[in-house]
């Protein structure tokens, strides 16, 4: 036996969040194992394997490019870079939350039989999506390097806190919905609709200034756009990667695309969303803990 103090499992109706996090930490290797499994199972028996995860955004890129750049003529230069900056993050968020929602129900046989911290299941989905995200980002970065794209260094670092905040928010919703879905199974279907609406409510394929201008014309502050918690994340990524807040169109007119705040303005927004996401994560784990007691019976 190992000389170290053996772990103590406490089984009680309501365990503290700290307790739950400690248990999660102990099972971190399982998390890695499950992420690996998610990825392996997904591409088993497919000849293109991981290439599929690259083809998906490539296809989106092609479609949106045709629709928004050519047909609607948004005029944003390097539209592909602008689009991918937001789209890859959205895919990470959307894939994590919708995928995780069914994760407990989908692993019912496991939940019924073996103990492990159940939060691992939704978190593994987030992890698998994160791996995809990094792969896709590699391709984006390679593209930028080949183009010798001029990134704005004083904004580029924003991508790191933006990604962290995005992960916290995605994890919180993943944990919350995976538990709720055990009791209300069609949450999954409802969520697909909500995510579709959410996507179009977020300035990913269009510029942030379009809804902002609409708000200004009606005498409302442009800050209203930031109430959508994904917006501060997406615009920080766009500002960091696409690199500017506007462009000069062929008529010599300056067209605003993103808010003209400095890096700290972007960071402040991220901090607010980050704080809310953290609070949400704690609530999600509490709710999860409450509902978890009866998972085995409901499944």
């Amino acid at each position, binding site marked *: *036996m190992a000389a170290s103090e*053996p*772990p*103590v*499992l*406490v*089984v*009680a*109706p309501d365990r503290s969040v700290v307790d739950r996090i400690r248990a999660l930490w*102990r*099972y971190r*290797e*399982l998390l*890695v*194992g*499950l992420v*690996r*499994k998610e990825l*392996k*199972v997904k591409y*088993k*028996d497919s000849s293109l394997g991981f290439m599929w995860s690259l083809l998906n955004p490539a296809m989106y890129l092609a479609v949106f490019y045709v629709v928004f750049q050519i047909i609607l003529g948004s005029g944003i230069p390097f539209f592909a870079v602008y689009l991918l900056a937001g789209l890859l993050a959205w895919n990470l968020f959307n894939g994590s939350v919708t995928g995780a929602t069914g994760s407990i129900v989908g*692993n019912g*046989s*496991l*939940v*019924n*039989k*073996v*103990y*492990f911290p159940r939060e691992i299941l939704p978190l593994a989905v987030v992890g698998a999506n994160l791996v995809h995200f990094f792969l896709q980002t590699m391709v984006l970065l390679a593209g930028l390097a080949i183009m010798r794209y001029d990134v704005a260094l004083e904004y580029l670092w924003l991508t790191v806190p933006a990604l962290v905040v995005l992960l916290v928010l995605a994890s919180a919703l993943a944990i919350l919905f995976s538990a709720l879905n055990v*009791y*209300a*199974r*069609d*949450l999954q279907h*409802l969520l697909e609709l909500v995510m579709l609406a959410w996507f179009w409510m977020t300035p990913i394929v269009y510029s942030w200034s379009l809804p902002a201008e609409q708000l200004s014309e009606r005498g409302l502050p442009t800050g209203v756009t930031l109430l959508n918690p994904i917006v501060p994340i997406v615009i920080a990524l766009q500002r960091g990667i696409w690199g500017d807040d506007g462009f000069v169109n062929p008529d010599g007119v300056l067209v605003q695309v993103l808010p003209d705040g400095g890096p700290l303005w972007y960071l402040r927004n991220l901090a607010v969303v980050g704080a809310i996401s953290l609070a949400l994560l704690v609530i999600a784990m509490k709710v999860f803990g409450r509902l*978890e*007691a*009866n998972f*085995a*019976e*409901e499944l």
Partner: protein
Amino acid sequence: MTDTAISIDGVSKRFRINQDRQSSLKERAIGFGRPKRGHKDFWALRDIDLDIREGETVGLLGHNGSGKSTLLKCVGGILAPTMGEIRVRGRIASLLELGAGFHPDLTGRENVFLNASILGMSRSDIATRFDDIVAFAELEQFIDEQVKHYSSGMYVRLGFAVAINVEPDVLLVDEVLSVGDEAFQQKCLERVRGFQRDGRTIIFVSHAADLVRRICDRVMVLDHGESVAVDDPASAILIFREHIHGGLSLDEDQVLNHGHVVTNQVRIEEVRASWPGSEDHGTIAPGQPLSIAVRYACDEPIDDIVFAMEMRNIDDVNVYSCNTDVLEQEVERVDGGGWVTFEIPALDLVDGQYLVDVGCHTHDVITEYDFVHEAARVTVVGSGSVGGVANLGAKVTHSPAG
């Protein structure tokens, strides 16, 4: 640090049986505001207290629906109790979920790693034990095949091999010995005994009283979610049978003999205790040789057999027990009939009456052929008024200082 491995403290578990389960949002929305149609509460466990020491094997005995499996699931962390708390020290593994979490599309190798990490093993631990696991499962050739191509036997073997190699501090066994073929049961039981020797804590759930009696140190009897008794196996089984079971349900060819279920494939016909002069007087002096001769008979040849004897004093304390295996005099085969004689060179016991039980069973003790309770009585007279059990024959000297 205490040596308590598992403490179960006031644990109750309520199941809610909804008359109309609302598990979709639509049903919930429609049902909202209406008076809730009744749900029934069902207490699967009520106020269970139990402390289990490290290295102890505790049986949970009860018929179906008594709550024993629910309690095991609570200990395993699969269900959370409605009230109370359970603390388990150390790594838990269960032999109830062989191959839980195997993914059909992954290879045996990948599944071993995944399954073992679900059971709480680290990747490096799994890597060092990987060859053992595969060898135990006898799947060397197939380990890189997808598990969906495995037969169910291969599947179970691999699951079992992982479970026993997890090196748990606490092992949960739930009726596992009642599934699978005989060879598999054998392997399970051998492993359980191995775990006992290693001083690991085991909780053993069964409704097979006989198995519980042979394996457990202590037994909790459960009935309708309540603990009826926590006692040594023999007493607990008696309570289980008298209080709860109501009657006996034995296979046709089995009979009950002082709490032992015996098959009578081998019958103990006669047991004779003798010592020098035993024909003349009925008592034996301490230090004299004693022989216990057992005459058996059987109708068909049997080559898996152990003869055992146990000597108890009047307080039911085991004074000495042995069998042909531990004495390294294996009985290869019995056919027809014969004698087995236990020779005790010197019976160094204090005065009193001693009872001898004799039995014979398979090497794994799963099947008992016969058991004779109080097959012989031996009365020791002559050691005087010394007390205790063993006559250690002390001498005393006194040397005053000056």
